[in-house]
């Protein structure tokens, strides 16, 4: 009798959203324990289940898994969304790592200093349209198949859909003419279900939730770095 995975995070997207997407796409039901305040977060830390005193944390299969990538890889492999062989896994890894670079930029954008916002948005959109999205376009065009890797649904497709939707929230027309892939992936039953209202998918941050996040994790300064080669999170 398998227990449902239990997700520990705050009530927002952050780093947990990719995990929600992957579980949902795999058709895995999950529970969420979402904290709202700094005190609740500290209580979780005191509980000793966070290896590095950080979230996301997912309780599953008698493990308290932390580190976003560790969790994602485990889910992907367990539910056969990680390719059929080592080389396919390598391609999936390359694709999702690139997507993470882009999605991190979008994720941290709300925490920009006000005077940097416009510049940062332009940077994100430029990267999306010249460095990242063309790669996936080309991959799909080159092999002419419906999915990025191995002619079947994988973590890479799910992650790509998530990031396309995030980019469209930044600028609706960013993906002009790239609708075919999205339409196809969105119609997969488990994914379609996750896209409906009332699913466990979280909305983007607004003014109120940004303040909540800042209070819980004690972000004190603008965190959007100029060259975007990495994000340094302080919490």
């Amino acid at each position, binding site marked *: 009798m398998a227990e449902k995975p239990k997700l520990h995070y705050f009530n927002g997207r952050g780093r947990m959203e990719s995990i929600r997407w992957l579980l949902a796409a795999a058709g895995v039901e999950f529970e969420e324990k979402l904290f709202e305040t700094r005190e609740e977060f500290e209580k979780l830390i005191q509980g000793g289940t966070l*290896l*590095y*005193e950080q979230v996301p944390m997912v309780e599953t*299969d008698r*493990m308290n*898994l*932390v*580190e*976003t*990538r*560790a969790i994602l*890889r*485990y889910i992907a*492999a*367990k539910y056969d969304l990680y390719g059929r062989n*080592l*080389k396919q*896994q*390598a391609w999936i*890894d*390359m694709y999702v*790592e*690139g997507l993470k*670079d882009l999605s991190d930029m979008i994720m941290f954008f709300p925490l920009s200093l006000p005077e940097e916002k416009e510049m940062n948005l332009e940077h994100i959109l430029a990267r999306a349209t010249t*460095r*990242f999205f063309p*790669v996936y376009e080309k991959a799909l065009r080159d092999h002419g198949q419906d999915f990025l890797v191995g002619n079947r649904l994988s973590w890479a497709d799910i992650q790509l859909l998530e990031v396309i939707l995030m980019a469209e929230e930044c600028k609706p027309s960013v993906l002009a003419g790239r609708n075919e892939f999205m339409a196809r992936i969105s119609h997969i039953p488990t994914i379609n279900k996750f896209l409906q209202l009332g699913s466990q998918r979280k909305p983007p941050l607004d003014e109120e939730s940004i303040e909540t996040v800042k209070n819980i994790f004690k972000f004190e300064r603008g965190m959007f770095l100029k*060259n975007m*080669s*990495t994000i*340094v999170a302080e919490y």
Partner: protein
Amino acid sequence: MPGKVKLHYCDGRGRMEAIRWLLAAAGVEFEEIFLETAEDLDKLRNDGRLMFQQVPMVEIDGMELVQTRAILNYIASKHNLGKDLKERALIDMYVEGMMDLNEIIIMLLTYPPEEQVNQLALLKEKTTNRYFPAFEKVLKSHGQDYLVGNRLSRADVHLVELIYNVEEFDPGLTANFPLLKALKTRISNLPTVKKFLQPGSQRKPHEDMKTMDKARKIFRF
């Protein structure tokens, strides 16, 4: 007949060093093609060999792999440095924590000098308060010679690399972690790792401003 593994990066540690360690520990020979100028990087980009216009890039098994973690995952899986699903989950958890800490080191010299002081303090604090205690606890909990599965995995290799790295900033950082020190000795004595630790190996020296200046020119930042 498989071709040789080829690494494309600049002549410094950066994001390629962890890959060098893992290949060395696995006993895999590799060649290195060093970027010397911004034009060298431009050429790789213009030739379409870098999926996201970035290095590291590793030619291996007929692929041009990019993204540090994709490369590390491939090498580790191929050379049996991380086994079944649950073991791999543990390995990944530990390795991701190590990479978070190592990230501070990789980025250190990109900051202005005043900020470098802060980052160094952060490095020491996180090492002794967050990461080393976590890994010491893992070793203590099972009393085995390796972090996961009672056999060598990439987690041990990355951890020992990390220990060497932080000790370069302050040898005293491992003072209160006897099990980590013992692991470091044990892993350092494995034939492949021992070889990599000798002078003249492909291991790169501690990053200095000279390598950083060169990297700035190549990567234009």
